[in-house]
Structures are given as C-alpha cells and as structure tokens.
C-alpha cells in the first residue's frame, strides 16, 4: 500500500487512527501491529510470511544474544543473526545478480530464479540487524515482548520506505509514549507536507522523466533537464516519504529521527552525505565503518574501509552494477575531499562549493538512474555531447517552459528558505498569528490538491521501492 493512494488516505488511515485512539493504552501497540501487518499484506501477500519469519528470527536471536551476553560465546548468536538477516537479504535481492554475473564471467548456464523482490526488505532487515547488534554491544536492552518487537519492525509508517529506525530510539516509546494534540497536529502537518512533496513535485518531475525516456527527439539540453528532474524527483520522493513516516510516527507518539536535512545546500560531498538519507549513512557508519576501524587506522586501511562501506551503500540501493559504481563514485569523492579537496573548498566562495556539489550530485544520479551500465554510458554521453544529437530543439524548449515553474518551486522547496521564513515569522506576534491562520488552510488545501492528483492519475510508485 502506498501512502500516496486513495486507499491509504481515505480508507486505511482514518480507520487505523480511529481504532488507535479509541482503544485503551494497552491495546494500542496491538492495533499498530495488526494494521502494519495488513498494510504489508496488502502490497505483498506472500512475502508477509517472510517478514513475519524475519521478525520471529530477529526476536529469537535477541533472546539468545541476551542469554549469552556474559558467556564466552556471546558473539555466536550475533553472528548467527547477521548471517540469517544478510543471508535472507542476499537471497531475495541479489541472487539473480550473482547468478547473472557468474554466468557472464565464467560462461556458466545457471538458471535465473523466479523471485520477486519483497518490498521493504532492505529496511526491515537493517532494523532487525541494528537491534541484534546493539543488543550484543549492550547499547540496548532485550525486548521480551514479541508484540512490541514485531510492532517496532513492522510499524507501517517506516516499514517499506524508511527511515531506518534504530530500536534504541524507540525502545522507551514502544511501551511508554505520550500523545498530545500538539504531536497529532504536527504529525498531520508533517505527513501532508511529505505527501505534497511526493505527489505534487516528485510525481510531476517523474512525468517529465518519463516523457524524456520515451522521446525520439532528445537533445543535450533535454538530457540535462531530465537528469536534474530525476535528481529533484528522487529527493522529493524519498524525503517526502521520510516526512510522511516521521509525521505518522508522531501522530502515534513516536519520534523518528530526521532522514534528510536539505542536502542540496551542502558545500561538500562529505556534508551532502551527512544530510542525505541520514539513517542509512549512520547505519553503515555504526555497523560497518566504525567496527572496521573507521578513520583511526592507516591511510590505506581507511581507504579500504571507505571503499567497502560505499560499495555496500551502492549495492544496497539496487542489484545492478550502476549502483555499485554510484557508491564507488562517492567513495572516490569522499577520499579526495578528505585528502585534498576540503582544503581547497574551504578557500573558495560558497557559491563555487554549491556548484561543485550540485554538479557532482546530478552526475551521480545520472549513474543511479541508468538501467545498467549501457544506459549509464548513454546518459553520460548525452550530457556531455558525446551523442550525435542537437544542443536543443522545439521539444526541449516546450518541456523546459512547461516544467519551468515546477523546477523553480522544487528548487526553492529543496532549500530551507520556507523553514527560515516560518521561523522568522514566529519571532513576531503578528507573524505567529499569520502562521496560525494560514497553516490549517494550507495543510487542508494541500491535502485536497494531492487528492485531485491521485484521483486524476493512477500510478505513482515510490522510487525506493526496489530496496
């Protein structure tokens, strides 16, 4: 089920919210669990069994880790948990990628398996892993209530599209959380803002991207417009979903961590990755990079650590080589920045830093967007005049004009300008009155506009669903 669907907005959510707030406190987690399982079942009837099994195994491993915590074999259940979780992820997500590559490199003929990628497997697997590893490290306490644990893993606000919620962040709230009018109102506003980013901006930009891919009249300028559109689309898609997850979580009394912090205002790639998909970056930092030594090792080992983390980051995004190259592309940039670029960037005007970041990020999404290496090559050649195509034509200009306002709004919305204005207004009493008056109206209008788009259209998949 998509958040940005009529079924979710006008069937599922009102029913779940109604039930949740009617039932006594001791049944609230049960309502969340049942609705989350149904939410997942709706989109993946068969793979619901896989998720439930993963939850069960994660829970049992948690008990085992806790039981063995003072034994000399304490590592064993943790290793078992990693093998089971990663094994499941590799099987369902990467088997055919591995088979294809084995067949290509070794001229074998291993048959491809008929497996569909279970939605959200990358997210809930990482959540279960983080719980087990944190438990082993004694950074958290075991959760003996399987209902609570299952609620944590399957919680529908973040189940299929993140952010990756650490168990330690919600441990207390699973059993003791407070609800308030302020939280609910904040949650609703945040949810609708996210929904608007997804439907009004991301989907719109996605339409342009689709038009480009079907066009037989591509030009260099059209390649750039399409790639920039994709960069913005993926940002609004993903950050929109994160906003929706955070908003819904807040309605239910949970405080999820922020997942995006205006990444496009970054002045370096290093900073970009502190602002983009924060929950994934910190996950790899805490569970892969730091255990390998982080940057407290020799330079060579540090580069090795960076390469491994970014290889994994890339491949987490998809079972294709272009994702691997995408990850390694950032590895290279991060190494270069650490070694020399940062010193240069510090001396340059901020505008140059921003141009540097945006140029490299847009290029990265050209790599990300290619369906395989062949297409990546085509896109890059298209961007830099390597194909025999004109610089621009009437079609390009038509779509540039048609999407001009969308681009402008999207670019402004990707900066903290609106947040800054609201904060500033809140420092004046008149400003506060204006916000108090406008906010309910704007939120309601946005909800209705989004509904209009949903009823008019029919298909608006979340880009990160392949993860």
């Amino acid at each position, binding site marked *: 089920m998509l958040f940005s669907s009529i*079924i979710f907005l*006008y069937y599922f*959510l009102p029913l779940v919210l*109604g039930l949740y707030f009617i039932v006594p406190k001791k049944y609230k987690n049960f309502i969340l669990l049942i609705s989350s399982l149904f939410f997942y079942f709706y989109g993946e009837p068969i793979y619901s069994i896989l998720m439930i099994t993963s939850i069960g195994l994660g829970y049992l491993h948690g008990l085992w880790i806790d039981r063995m915590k003072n034994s000399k074999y304490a590592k064993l259940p943790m290793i078992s948990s990693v093998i089971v979780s990663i094994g499941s992820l590799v099987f369902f997500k990467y088997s055919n990628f591995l088979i294809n590559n084995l067949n290509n490199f070794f001229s074998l003929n291993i048959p491809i398996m008929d497996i569909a990628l279970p939605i959200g497997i990358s997210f809930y697997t990482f959540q279960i892993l983080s719980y087990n590893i944190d438990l082993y490290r004694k950074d958290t306490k075991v959760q003996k209530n399987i209902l609570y644990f299952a609620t944590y893993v399957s919680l529908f606000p973040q189940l299929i599209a993140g952010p990756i919620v650490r168990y330690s962040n919600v441990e207390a709230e699973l059993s003791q959380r407070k609800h308030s009018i302020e939280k609910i109102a904040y949650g*609703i506003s945040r949810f609708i803002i996210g929904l608007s980013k997804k439907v009004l901006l991301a989907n719109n930009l996605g339409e342009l991207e689709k038009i480009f891919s079907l066009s037989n009249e591509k030009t260099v300028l059209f390649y750039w417009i399409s790639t920039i559109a994709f960069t913005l689309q993926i940002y609004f898609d993903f950050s929109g979903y994160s906003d929706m997850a955070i908003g819904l979580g807040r309605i239910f009394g949970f405080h999820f961590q922020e997942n995006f912090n205006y990444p496009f205002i970054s002045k370096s790639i290093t900073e970009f990755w502190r602002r983009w998909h924060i929950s994934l970056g910190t996950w790899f930092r805490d569970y892969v990079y730091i255990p390998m030594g982080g940057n407290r090792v020799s330079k060579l080992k540090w580069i090795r650590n960076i390469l491994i983390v970014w290889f994994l980051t890339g491949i987490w995004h998809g079972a294709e080589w272009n994702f691997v190259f995408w990850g390694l592309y950032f590895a290279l940039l991060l190494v270069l920045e650490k070694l020399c670029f940062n010193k240069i960037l510090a001396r340059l005007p901020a505008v140059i830093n921003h141009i540097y970041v945006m140029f490299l990020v847009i290029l990265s999404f050209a790599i990300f967007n290619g369906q395989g290496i062949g297409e990546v090559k085509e896109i890059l050649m298209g961007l830099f005049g390597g194909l025999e195509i004109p610089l621009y034509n009437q079609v390009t200009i*038509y779509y540039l004009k048609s999407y001009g306002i969308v681009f402008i709004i999207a670019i402004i919305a990707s900066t903290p300008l609106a947040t800054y204005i609201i904060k500033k207004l809140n420092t004046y009493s008149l400003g506060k009155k204006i916000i108090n008056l406008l906010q309910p109206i704007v939120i309601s209008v946005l909800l209705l506009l989004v*509904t*209009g788009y949903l009823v008019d259209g029919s298909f608006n998949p979340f880009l990160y669903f392949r993860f």
Partner: protein
Amino acid sequence: MKNQIKNYIIIALFIIITYGLMLINIFKPDNEISYSERRRLLQEPSFTLQSFISGDYFTAYEKYALDQFPFRDKIRGLKAFTSYYIFKQKDNNSLYIVDGYINKIEYPLNEKAIINAANKINEVYNKYLQGMNVSYAIIPDKNYFLADKKGHLSMDYDKLIQVMNGNIMNMNYIDLFEQLTIDDYYKTDIHWRQDKLIELTEYLLRSMGNELSLTKDEFSKISLYPFYGSYYGQAALNIKADTLIYLTNEMIESALVYDHIDKTYSKIYNKDRFNTVDSYDIFLSGAKSLLTIYNPKALNNKELIIFRDSFGSSIAPLMLKGYSKITLVDLRYLSTDLLSNYIDFSTNQDVLFLYNIVILNNSYMLK
C-alpha cells in the same frame, strides 16, 4: 493558547476531509457511467480467497476506489487547475487550451504510421476500386490551427501531406487544409461542427465531380445544449459546454440508414444518443463498421462509398443531395478482406477516403 487552537483546527479539518470523504464514499451508490469522461466506471470487484491471497483483489479495489471517488470531476478539476494555473504547465494529460478550445497534443509525426495508412488505402484500391473515381482527403486536427499559436508541440503537417501524396496512387487528392478554420470545430470535442460544413461539403462534392450547390437555406438547424465533448471530461476544467447543432431537411429526414452488421434500419440522427456517454453518436448512432444510407428523395442514381472515421458521420448526411446511396465503411472495425461480402463495387460509384490526422498518425488500427 492560540497555537493550541491552530492545532485543534488542523486536526478537525483533517478529520472532516478524510472521514467525510470516506463516509460519503461508503454510503453513496456507485456510479455506472462518467458522462464527463465518456466511459463506464469500475464497479466493486468480487472478493475471492484466491484474489485476496494473490493481491489481485486489492489492485482491483484500488482502481475501483479511484473511479468511484466522491465528487470525482471536481476533485480532478483541482489537479487541472493546479497544473494550468499554478504550475503553468503547457498541457495536462496532453490536453491544452487555447482561446477556449481544448486540444489534445498529437505529436510527433509518425511517418511509419502515415505510410502504413497510405499502403492500406492503396490496398483497398487495388483490391476493389480499380477504374473508379476515387479521391482522398485529410481532415486537419485542431492542433493544426492552434498548436503553433501558443508554442505547443506541432507536428510537421507539410511532411504528412507530402508523405501521403507521395505514397497514395491512382487517386485525386482533395486539400481540406485551406477550407477549414478552428471555428469549424467544437471547443470541447475532437470533431468538426456539422453546421459549419456546408461550404466544405459543396467543395468536396465538386472536387469529386458533382456540380451542385449547397446553401444554408436548404437546411434547418436543431440546437442541443449542453454538448460535453470528448475532451471536456479529460480536461476537468470549468469550460463552457458546446452547443451541438445538427442540420436537417426533408431529404435527410426521409433517408434510411441500414446497419449491415446488426441488420437494422434507423434514421440519420439518433437523438436518444444525446446526453449519453458520447453525445456525438447522435450522428448515425456512433461507431459502426458498415452503414448504407438510402436516399428516397435522391436527384440522381449516383452512389458514394466513404472510407471514414467518426468525422464522416456528421458530413455524410450533408452529401445526400449528390447521391441516392452512401455507404460508410469504417476500417477500424471491418477488415478490408471482408468488404466484397457486403459491397458491390462498380465503376459508377464515387469513392472517398476521408480520415482525420489522428487516425492517420495512428493508422495501425485500420484492418
């Protein structure tokens, strides 16, 4: 304190909108037809255990929920409004509006499809029409008149005509492009207006060798309002509906239309079709594979065969003055190979291939 009031209002509005629309959706009876979108709306899917487990039930229910959403037209209008007036997008679902005319983008020129259309026409000629008086004409779409005006995508019409002329053999080409203006078309529909076609009909008839004149005075006008054309529902904007004006006289009223497939007789104008899913079906009862119009008040024994699309339905009645019998063939529904089962081709018949640009640009639908 005021923050709390704001919070209560946000929650209240959210509940009103979500619960309100949810409850209306549950309790309102399902609509069968969308007149503005001219199609049947999906009904509630049947529940089976298999479809539930496979997920097909949910997919079907999702589509049904979209179709039956309350205030669907108005809600869709919000998207159209946002698209045109806030985002200032040049088109919405490939529809754009210029001077009150709703148009659908037809771009780019599909040269292969045009050649295919020409080949299909040649095929029909070679099979059945050799030695006959055969003409062809292309009906321009509304984009021809309006696309360039406000910088919308406009296909290469000169190339289209050039390709057709270069590939069609043995026929007389009748150029309609200079005979029509945008005023001859409906604002909310793809089609031309029958009440504006008198001069054009005379021109067509003369081009096919019929020396006769047609004037406005020969017809009386019947106006039907409101006519929501094919683009009206798709556009989802508050645009004034058209008035459908059809022309009639004693000759047209006395004519009989025979449907070769249904084996039924009817009148030229089927007024019951007005205010149905497609009001344009008033002309010859809509999409039909093969019709023959018999003209008991004919001034001669001449016969005409028109290979046509829906545009032909509204112009054929005006051509009755020149013929005792007009046969209309729609190759979208009837295969070329079957024509001799129904039509006696003879050299004293006039033949006209009359297609609009959209059909030619997507000609693979011709059988």
